């Protein structure tokens, strides 16, 4: 059981380049999330999904896009990379029967460190 797998672990981008951060979970979780973690700032929610085909914006969605074509995969797309997107990105998932049941017990991936120069 791999849990939540993120790739790549590290990436350096030039300003204006695009890339996709991959996230896969094998726990049959319905909810999936993308967070960014900046030093001294905690975790900020970028996008989340409550199931295949359904995505919604979090606290800081600008500059990012997501899709959820399968239960397992939740890729995060950066279209025009900017230095402000330098961060560590975490994908997380959980199983929930509704918004209030277990939406808080998240399983996280190991993170993807992105630097935009």
């Amino acid at each position, binding site marked *: 059981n791999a849990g*939540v797998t993120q790739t790549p672990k590290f990436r350096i981008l030039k300003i204006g380049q695009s890339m996709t951060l991959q996230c896969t979970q094998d726990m049959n979780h319905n909810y999936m999330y993308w967070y960014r973690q900046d030093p*001294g*700032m*905690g*975790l*900020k*929610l970028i996008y*989340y999904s409550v199931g295949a085909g359904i995505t919604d914006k*979090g*606290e800081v969605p600008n500059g990012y896009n997501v899709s959820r074509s399968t239960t397992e995969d939740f890729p995060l797309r950066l279209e025009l990379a900017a230095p402000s997107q330098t961060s560590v990105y*975490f994908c*997380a998932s959980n199983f929930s029967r509704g*918004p*209030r049941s277990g*939406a*808080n*017990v*998240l*399983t*996280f*991936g*190991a*993170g993807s460190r992105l630097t935009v120069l």
Partner: protein
Amino acid sequence: QQQVKQSPQSLIVQKGGISIINCAYENTAFDYFPWYQQFPGKGPALLIAIRPDVSEKKEGRFTISFNKSAKQFSLHIMDSQPGDSATYFCAALNSNYQLIWGAGTKLIIKP
């Protein structure tokens, strides 16, 4: 109103001592308060959590104390060990069922 304020930013404790991390919030609609532990190079993992209808929850050496009237909650680590060295995050579940995170506390336990 959507913030969770966490202190201190960093903390050094001697082995065997008590580590205390504090969080405060404003929004009374928050109703679930987890603590996550993060080791370097890893994602956060749930450590312990509490709902506001109880004032304390204990799991082994880890205790959450919750003060609803003061809108504060804290994590106490008894008999702190070097293996407890990590970053700790408090969080709160808002009315949109999303977690609002504190800024984190880097804890170092000195042998």
